[in-house]
């Protein structure tokens, strides 16, 4: 099966980035401090979309890639768990003052989103290599 790079870029990366891009657009248009340019929850959404796409991509691989499939499924599920836990902390921090440091939540969200991007790129590399054989 041929792997389409443009399809992956459009469906996964751009769709995952929609919350981040829309918030940036609103922040730019509003030109005030009412809207924050970047939030932890948008980045967590981006990470979740990337991990869900990884699970979907590995679903259709042949038996030869069994080990790869197990590794990617495990990684994506662990990553989704971390994203879920961080989402809970972000929601809790929004509602209760002084319990969770907002900057720490944003930093952790940026780190987790970067890790999801790394996992998705490794998956992308595998699918490109596989389709070129």
């Amino acid at each position, binding site marked *: 099966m041929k792997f389409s790079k443009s399809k992956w870029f459009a469906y996964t990366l751009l769709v995952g980035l929609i919350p981040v891009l829309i918030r940036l657009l609103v922040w730019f248009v509003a030109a005030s401090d009412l809207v924050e340019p970047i939030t932890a929850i948008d980045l967590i959404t981006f990470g979740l979309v990337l991990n869900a796409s990884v699970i979907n991509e590995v679903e259709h691989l042949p038996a030869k890639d069994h080990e790869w499939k197990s590794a990617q499924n*495990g990684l994506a599920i662990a*990553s989704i768990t971390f994203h879920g836990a961080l989402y809970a902390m972000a929601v809790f921090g929004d509602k209760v003052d002084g319990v969770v440091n907002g900057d720490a939540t944003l930093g952790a969200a940026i780190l*987790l989103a970067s*890790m999801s991007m*790394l*996992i998705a790129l490794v998956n992308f590399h595998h699918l490109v290599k596989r389709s070129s054989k």
Partner: protein
Amino acid sequence: MTIGTAIVYLIGALGAIVGIGGSIWSWRITNRLYPSEKKKTRTKK
């Protein structure tokens, strides 16, 4: 530092370890399953 912030740091650290470690592991599996052409055609002289 509050307990909530400590948990957030812990989640970030664990996520980074799993992400980097898992990516390296996956990269190695890919290269073993689909070796590059150069490696494939190399022969002993």
